[in-house]
C-alpha cells in the first residue's frame, strides 16, 4: 500500500486555469506538507499542516490555497495558474511537526504540473 499518494501524477493546463492536486497519507501522521521542486531540483517548502491546522505558509502567493478536510488529507488548490507555477509538487507527511528522531518525512511521488 502506498503510504503517501497524490493525484494526478501529471497535470498539463493552460495559463489562467484553476487546478487541484490531492494528497492522502495512510501512516496516521499528524503533519502534512506541500513542497515545490523546480527544474534545478531545489525543493522548497510551501505549507505544513498539523492536525488540520495551518502551521507554515512560506511566502507562497495567495493563489495557492491548501485545504485539509481531515488529518489524512491535504489538498492543494491553485488559482489563475501562471507559467512560473510549472514544477513538481510533492506532498509529504511526518509524525511530528519538524524533525525528530522518529519523524522523517515520507514523500509522495510528486505531481508534475506544466502550465502552457
Amino acid at each position, binding site marked *: 500500500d502506498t503510504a*503517501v499518494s497524490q493525484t494526478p501524477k501529471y497535470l498539463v493546463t493552460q495559463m489562467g486555469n484553476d487546478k487541484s492536486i490531492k494528497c492522502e497519507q495512510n501512516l496516521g501522521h499528524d503533519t502534512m*506538507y506541500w*513542497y515545490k521542486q523546480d527544474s*534545478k*531540483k*531545489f*525543493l*522548497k*517548502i510551501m505549507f*505544513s499542516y498539523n492536525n488540520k491546522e495551518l502551521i*507554515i505558509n512560506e511566502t507562497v502567493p495567495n493563489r495557492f490555497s491548501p485545504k485539509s478536510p481531515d488529518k489524512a488529507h491535504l489538498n492543494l488548490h491553485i488559482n489563475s495558474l501562471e507559467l512560473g507555477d510549472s514544477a513538481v509538487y*510533492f506532498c*509529504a507527511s511526518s509524525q511530528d*511537526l*519538524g*524533525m*525528530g*528522531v522518529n519523524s*522523517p*518525512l*515520507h*514523500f*509522495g*511521488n*510528486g505531481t508534475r504540473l506544466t502550465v502552457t
Partner: protein
Amino acid sequence: SQQGEEDPQALSIQEGENATMNCSYKTSINNLQWYRQNSGRGLVHLILIRSNEREKHSGRLRVTLDTSKKSSSLLITASRAADTASYFCATDVGQFYFGTGTSLTVIP
C-alpha cells in the same frame, strides 16, 4: 536562507567505488537528515544525525557531521548501479530545509 547546499552538484563513478557528497548549511541545527530521490519519484529518508553526534552508519552509508564547520558528508561505500539517484540533505531548524541535491551516477 537556511537551506542545506550539497556539493558536488553532479558525481559520476564506477560501480564498486565509494561516493562522497557534502552538505553545508548556515545556521545552528537540531538534526540533519539525508534523503535519496530516484528519477520521477519522491524523496526517501536514508539517515538522520543529531547535532550532538559526529558520525553515524547505516549499512553502506556513513554520515558525518561537523557543527563547527556547519557541514555534513554522506559516504556510500561499494556503490552499485542502483545507487544512481539524487541525494539531498535536509536541515532541521524547526522545519525542513532542502538544497538542490547531488546527482550521483554509478556506471556499471
